[in-house]
């Protein structure tokens, strides 16, 4: 039985609430305005994993999120930001957390997402045309939550993802690009959500993922790079989706994540001793949830939302 100690749940909740109520007069608030909606997703999901969601100002948050929607149906990172796929996904995920998906104009979102698919099956991040396997995952996940995968060419999306598969079993951002744990998560997530995992050599990919674990127990993003807590999510959830969680040493990884906590101010950092931030707090908590931490809600590896939300239908 793995030990999850020390793990100061209340301190982490405090940290997250403080982060959520960022001083609107601060420089940090200004600099992160364009991606506020993704910040909201990381913060709120973390709070929900810690069983604290009912303490948030649900109505204010939901109405702010809804005000980020554009005519096109897509959401921007904040009220006066241009719509894009990643922000649209974050918006849908947040509404899913609050079980208020019915308040969305779902048809408009679906048509916005579908409009971003190209003839090779890949998705653009927005109307400007950047292609990256992350965007395909965002599109497929968004439509999976709304149960509208029928609106796009799933078969072509899968073909594009497969074209990003590399010789080492990993996936890159575009065909031929270096295998990277973040991209692997997006690609495996897409294959999982579209029932297409059988199309790859799962052993080979599982192997590449398992090789991310370093002697300190942490996971890295690519060979010969430093461990980082965010990979505790991306690598781990991929292994879970491939049914190979036991291919790494769980107790060493738990130790690494716990050592990356800020036991004074709360939150989790990228590495032991560094300053915590909301991004890494989310990934650290999500990783611990996958590893069976009893104080956390169970998170779904593909949806990156609590399992109870997914299985409610």
């Amino acid at each position, binding site marked *: 039985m793995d030990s999850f100690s020390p793990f100061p749940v209340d301190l982490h909740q405090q940290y997250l609430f403080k982060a959520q109520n960022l*001083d609107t*007069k*601060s*420089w940090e608030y*200004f*600099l992160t*305005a*364009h*991606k506020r909606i993704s910040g909201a997703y990381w913060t709120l999901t973390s709070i929900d994993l810690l069983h604290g969601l009912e303490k948030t100002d649900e109505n204010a948050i939901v109405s702010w999120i809804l005000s980020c929607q554009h005519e096109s149906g897509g959401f*921007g*990172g904040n009220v*006066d*930001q*241009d719509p*894009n796929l990643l922000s649209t996904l974050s918006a849908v995920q947040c509404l899913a957390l609050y079980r208020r998906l019915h308040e969305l104009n779902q048809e408009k979102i679906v048509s916005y997402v579908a409009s971003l698919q190209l003839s090779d099956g890949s998705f653009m991040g*927005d109307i*400007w*045309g*950047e292609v990256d396997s992350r965007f395909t995952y965002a599109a497929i996940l968004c439509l999976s939550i709304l149960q509208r995968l029928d609106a796009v060419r799933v078969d072509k999306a899968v073909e594009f993802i497969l074209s990003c598969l*590399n*010789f*080492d079993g990993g996936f*890159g*951002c*575009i*065909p*031929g*690009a*270096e*295998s*990277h744990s973040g991209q692997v998560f997006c690609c495996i997530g897409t294959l999982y959500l579209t029932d297409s995992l059988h199309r790859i050599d799962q052993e080979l990919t*599982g*192997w590449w993922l*398992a*090789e991310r*674990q370093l002697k300190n127990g942490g996971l890295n993003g*690519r*060979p*010969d*790079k430093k461990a980082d807590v965010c990979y505790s999510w991306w690598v781990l959830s991929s292994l879970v989706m491939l049914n*190979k969680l*036991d*291919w*790494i*040493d769980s107790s*060493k990884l738990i130790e690494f994540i716990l050592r990356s906590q800020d036991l004074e101010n709360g939150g989790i950092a990228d590495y032991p001793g560094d300053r915590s931030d909301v991004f890494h707090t989310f990934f650290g908590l999500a990783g611990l949830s996958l590893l069976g931490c009893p104080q956390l809600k169970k998170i779904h590896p593909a949806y990156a939302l609590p399992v109870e939300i997914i299985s409610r239908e």
Partner: protein
Amino acid sequence: MLPLFQDVELKTDTKALLELCQDIIQDIEEYLKPERSAPIDYETDFLWISALFRILLKRKEYSERALKVSLAAIQNNPADYSCWDFRRQILRRSQQMSLLQQELEICNELGLQNPKNYQIWFHRRFLCTFLENPQEELEFTETILLEDAKNYHAWSHRQWVVYRFQLLGEEAFSKKFLEMDFRNNSAWNYRYFVIFLSMKTAVISLELRQSEAYYAWEILQRSFMNESAWYYLWQVVDNEWHLFPSITQAVQNLLEEQKHNRLVRITWFNILMNKGELSEAQAICNQLKTELDTFHQSFWNEQLMIQSPK
């Protein structure tokens, strides 16, 4: 000029921009209203520039002054993607080469300061499709990589350029970076890409594979713990070890000298499986499971089960 903010000190540049936008000062002040009632932490210039930009954006004003204002906004916060979107709207309408060239200079400067900024890298690709300037892109990515040899954006951008313009001769570039750090996984990936994937009309001969396998082996001589070199070798061989007899023999010769090296043993395991020598493969499996690669016990257990007679 600014009746309600007379006591605020602004930089000359900011004042100049506000002067350019006299006709919409009221809109800006309206936009900033909520901020006035409380003291502000951050430099007021940033606030004013941001407000100016947002007003021009709302008005969809794709003008020369909008270019100036959005430039100031982007310098304050290069991650503000709406600002980059806005500049593309202006550039796309103008279609002036000189303007596009100027924009590239801006990307060079901001890109050097913010080498991991997604927006700037994508903006370069937007410009490149008009300017058709692969050489400049190669030079820029090289500059970035000389500072950070593993910058993921730089490598994938360079690959994008190489593929789009079907450029030759990039093996030398990968070699240059491997000479600097023979463990650089990005450089190994780039090598594989330029030699085996990038040319639409490439023919992969056995000769080519053998020469690349020997290159990887040469690098491995310097350290048999080099993960990426092993991965490269495995891929080039692609489970056809019988076509690479001397390297196969060399791996076997290493077993004694490199007793504790899991990568050597894993390679030998693959070779044995390839040859169909299952009981010997099983012995290696056990060794990996219990001594050399205990983190991956479950993986090796599975391998053992695969091999056992059914």
